């Protein structure tokens, strides 16, 4: 059986995780190319409808990552994101999307290795879960 290559969308903040992923690059650490990054000023900016949009658009998994608690460039955006995530988890389940398809993490600007690890772990996890086929149904619900 040919190995399934999942498509992962990463929503990251500009100050910590984007810079952390830059550090992964400058350190020439390798990770799976199945992930693409979309940059936000802060995880607090991330509207979780975007995650549904990504799933509706055919993403197999999503990463949300920002600054560690208390390290937010804007002091509290990541707390808002965390709270939103807690509420959103329940909704994901309700929509029939496996909650394991979403990884919520903190990667600081100094944690290049952690970013590589996060991506690889997520890709592996989503690979085990298989392709996300529920999105057609989501489109039917009008989310896509």
């Amino acid at each position, binding site marked *: 059986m040919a190995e399934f290559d999942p498509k992962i969308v990463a929503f990251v903040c500009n100050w910590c995780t984007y810079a952390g992923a*830059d550090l*992964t690059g400058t350190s020439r650490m390798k990770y799976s190319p199945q992930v693409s990054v979309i940059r936000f000023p802060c995880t607090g900016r991330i509207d979780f409808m975007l995650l549904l949009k990504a799933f509706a658009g055919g993403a197999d998994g999503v990463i949300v990552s920002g600054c560690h608690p208390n390290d937010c*460039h804007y002091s509290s955006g990541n707390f808002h994101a965390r709270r939103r995530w807690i509420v959103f988890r329940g909704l994901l389940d309700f929509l029939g999307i496996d909650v394991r398809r979403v990884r919520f993490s903190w990667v600081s600007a100094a944690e290049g290795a952690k970013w590589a690890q996060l991506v690889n772990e997520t890709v592996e996890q989503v690979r085990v879960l298989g392709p996300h086929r529920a999105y057609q149904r989501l489109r039917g619900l009008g989310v896509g």
Partner: protein
Amino acid sequence: MARIGVFVCHCGENISATVDVARVASEAAKIPGVVHSVDYKYMCSDPGQQLVKAAIQEKGLTGVVVAACSPRMHEPTFRRACAEAGLNPFLCEMANIREHCSWVHEKGEATTHKAIDIVRTLVAKVKKNRALQPIKVPVTKTALVLGGGIAGIQAALDIANAGHKVILVEKEPSIGGHMSQLSETFPTLDCSQCILTPRMVEVAQHPNITLHSYSELEGLDGFIGNFKARIRRKARSLDEKLCTGCGLCTQKCPLRRIPSEFDAGLGLRPAIYVPFPQAVPNKPVIDREHCTYYRTGKCRLCEKVCPTQAIRFDQPDEIVEADVGAVVVATGFDIKHADFFPEYGYGKYKDVIDGLQFERLASASGPTLGEIRRPSDGKVPETVAFIACAGSRDPAKGIEYCSKICCMYTAKHAMLYRHKVHHGRPVVFYMDIRAGGKMYEEFVRRAMEEDGVQYVRGRVSRIYERGGKLVVKGADTLLGARPVELEADLVVLATAGVAQPGAEDLAQRLHVSYDAHRFYAEAHPKLRPVETNTAGIFLAGACQAPKDIPESVAQASGAAAKVGALFSQSELVREPLIAVVDRQAPPVYSSCSGCFLCQGACPYQAIKREEIRGRDGQLIKTVAKVNPGLCQGCGTCVALCRSKSIDIQGYSHEQVYSEVLALLNRGERDG
């Protein structure tokens, strides 16, 4: 109709080694709306930028995507190039195919595919970009310097000498910091106080410097050029204007048993005290924790003897507010204290002391007036063991880093000891000697060769007492890890330099980041070493990482130069990536329903209420309004808004949704 230009960079071979750049360019040309797509070896070079500029003018581009390195690297470069060619700079986006693609993936189909995906995503975004105008804000030309050690003093003087006002805040009763405690300084052995105290006096007398000693920063609001600082002036319990600094109160205070902070606990001080004779300001402070009056309600002797009736037992703390345009953080460091070294018996044996205590023993103004006498019985020690890397470079202790100053000051201590006790035997236990610096290696050599300091390479495992002597057990790794046992009279630990207690509290008040060891983080480790990630806040000295005096002074002058550059302009230009509330024509006026959820979420108090009134002055509705001066563009309000009435420029709903759809290969219907 969008006319987008895509410029794919090889970055020498950094990108082209793993990504098929020619294919990225040809695939990009197929994206609807892309009218121009080329690849080039070095897009950031002058000819590369010329390619971009020429295409903007010849092809009439309405948007530019540069597929190259991280936007954190060259976004300003290409935005400037666009502006020079007459395109609004905010219509230029970077597609990061280097840090996020070519450097992290192996050469192959998947990597090139990913690069194409990234380009497509950014093309979709840039189509939705809007021309934005930079925001101009005024600059308050007053700097706030936190910390009155040598770094803070240097920064304050440099800024003040450039003609700007400075507010210097020091938490201790006197400025001077750790440097004022030192006996002599490496590698010249000049007396620390002799070079420092004139600077302290200069601070006190400078017309541009306002000194708040015995004060701490309560809070800082605002943004670059326009901060509002709240400073708590702790009660000294006396009227500073009346006090002449005669010192009668400190002489008469009957309580003289309090360990002196300045003497690192080796000397004693009264409850009303000046930390050291050259203190600036030379005004005493009552230590309310120990003072008999505050404990029992009796005594008040100082009040009776004061010739100017300056004592104020009921003085409250005072909060001072100040408008400042820039902040220099120079809060310094601390050293690891007792309990950290149970194996070395620190805190258990009186004659195991730390480096700062040795400085006080060797200092002419110290508790022994400069004679090296051990704390337990006051005897002159015959053999002194100096232990370098006590805590530093020790992952088991949680401190992996090198404290940087200990090799040098240990050599200095051994030297000073030898100069004062000619027949004494100094033995240094070390891991490596790190003497990088002007005249540093020569200094260590001098300690070994001229002053006969014995250096033993190996760590000390244990120290215990035997018959009035301290037995130092270690190994000599240059002699095949042969066990070494030394009977010493005094042991000096070169303990690790660590961040100040409360460093993280201050970082949170300032909105600056810090590392795993609570040292403040610079914006870039090489290229922006004195700036923090928060615009307008700069770093100087050992609050960033352990540093010696020359480095602290250099960094302080660097920070002062940055402040000077900031203050050289009367208006600051800021990126307009801020939130805006929807406003439209009547009868809707705004889709904002006025729930003000955004107001509570905003960390900068940037959201105000705005009343929309008709021509007759009648209130139509109350909606949110963003103050562009205060908004920092985090976008928390945007994600929170129920009616999507608030949007953030540069990361708008249109932009980010287009990105997601483009990344997943959909949504290219509109062209």
